[in-house]
């Protein structure tokens, strides 16, 4: 694993964190439509902690770094998002341990591990109107692009495009998990807050990639 790997991972995490803090209100409003409106607050508090502690994280390797991110996030976020996002980073950390370099394939396996971890943790299946309905198909698309030997920029663009499309498409689904599920059929017609939040975060990551 090279120093460049860690720098890229740091960029991704930092962008996620900064977006969560910047978009606190927007994410909260999204969750308020049929959920309980606390998504923005939860993510902002968790990722704020990440930014605060940024300098103190050990950077021996990518797995160590990610594990500390997991802890920082989940120690601050209550409710669903704390353990979900914490698990995602934990599992990504574990997946990173099994690879030598963080290339496209490694990114796919880390994303898959994160998604599977969240499924195991929260019990959601695809179609339950959660962020998984954006993240999983986008990961599939990324894998397809890599298999088709697409260039890095092309891969990122396809990933971001799919995550956004799928996030918007959650509008047609009925929420089965989280507080939004208490709204039952009323949840149909607006997109899942977590999915849209992920899409916005990933768009920020790809947009800024070249200036990272």
């Amino acid at each position: 694993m090279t120093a460049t790997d860690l720098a890229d991972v740091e960029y991704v995490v930092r962008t996620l964190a900064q977006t969560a803090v910047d978009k606190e209100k927007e994410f909260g409003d999204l969750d308020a439509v049929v959920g309980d409106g606390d998504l923005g607050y939860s993510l902002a508090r968790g990722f704020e902690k990440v930014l605060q502690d940024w300098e103190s994280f050990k950077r021996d390797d990518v797995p160590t770094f990610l594990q500390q991110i997991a802890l920082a996030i989940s120690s601050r976020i209550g409710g669903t998002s704390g353990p979900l996002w914490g698990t995602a980073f934990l599992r990504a950390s574990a997946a990173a341990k099994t690879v030598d370099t963080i290339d496209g394939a490694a990114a796919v396996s880390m994303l898959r591990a994160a998604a599977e971890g969240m499924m195991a943790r929260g019990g959601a299946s695809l179609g339950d109107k959660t962020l998984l309905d954006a993240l999983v198909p986008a990961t599939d698309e990324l894998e397809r692009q890599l298999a088709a030997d697409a260039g890095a920029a092309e891969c990122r663009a396809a990933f971001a495009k799919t995550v956004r499309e799928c996030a918007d498409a959650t509008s047609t689904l009925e929420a089965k998990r989280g507080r939004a599920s208490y709204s039952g059929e009323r949840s149909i017609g607006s997109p899942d807050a977590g999915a849209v939040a992920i899409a916005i975060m990933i768009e920020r990551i790809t947009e800024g990639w070249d200036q990272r």
Partner: protein
Amino acid sequence: MKKFVNDPKQFVPEMLEGLALANPETLKYVPEYNLIMRADGPDQNKVSIVQGSGSGHEPAHVMIVGKGMLDAACPGDVFAAPPFDYVYETTKMMASPKGVLLLVNNYTGDKMVFDMAQEMSSAEGIQVRTLFINDDVSVEDSTYTIGRRGVAGNFFVIKAVAAAAERGADLDEVIRIGEKVNSVTRSMGVALTACTPPAKGSPLFELGEDEIEIGVGIHGEPGRRRAAMMSANEIVEEMLTPIVQDLPFGDGDRVALMINGLGGTPISELYLLYGQAHKRLAEQGISVGRSYVGEYCTSLDMAGASITLVKLDDEIESLLRDPAEIPMRVF
């Protein structure tokens, strides 16, 4: 809202501070993690028994920390799962060579936090296992759960595993006992009024002047149905019948019978319910070996009660009979 409260955000810490001040010789309070632990813990010669849940269910669980019951409890805020680091740090602090058992009522939020804590503490080499309690027969999947909810029946699981641990059982044996007690424990509750969380300041749900909620959850979650107010004996019937049929309990069974107050119901009414439940069980050939009447797992100031039945055998009864030293003073 009229409650004894200063800043609602400090409600739980102030309660825990009071609890520790009242029990300086037996309890230790670690404010960083809402942690109440035995002053002399962790005991390196026994499995540590830890319970986590939201607050608002007192005496569950911070007030049952003591020799023969819990080694520690790390509650979240009122009706909120404890944050991950509370559980994680508590688990590390309570680590003993014989292992740690995390007891958790089955709610999605708590389950996620404790599963994750188990995963991370295990990764650090701590021997830790988690046991989910799900005694509530009212509803299957519900507001905060996939599967059945855990309610007052957890006291029986806690007491049995704690007694076993105190006797020296290893982690596998403690878990066997916990699973066994959970598998023969059934509960159901009824709310007469809604509860008011200090931070909300108004009732958590609406219940009409003449309405009751049958099968209510301990956070005020809906149960089986709304019904018109009825007599105490009819209410006992509404709770007892589903409980008895669920296991099922039957002729010749010996049980522990608990009438648990939900916080706003005086103990006089609880004993009245006890009498009727005891007699109705006797009519079905079910005898009460141990009785428990009082507040165990509450829902803040909710008026209401739950019934719990545990099918006893010699092993369980003997564990329940073991001594325990907890802050509830007999006088």
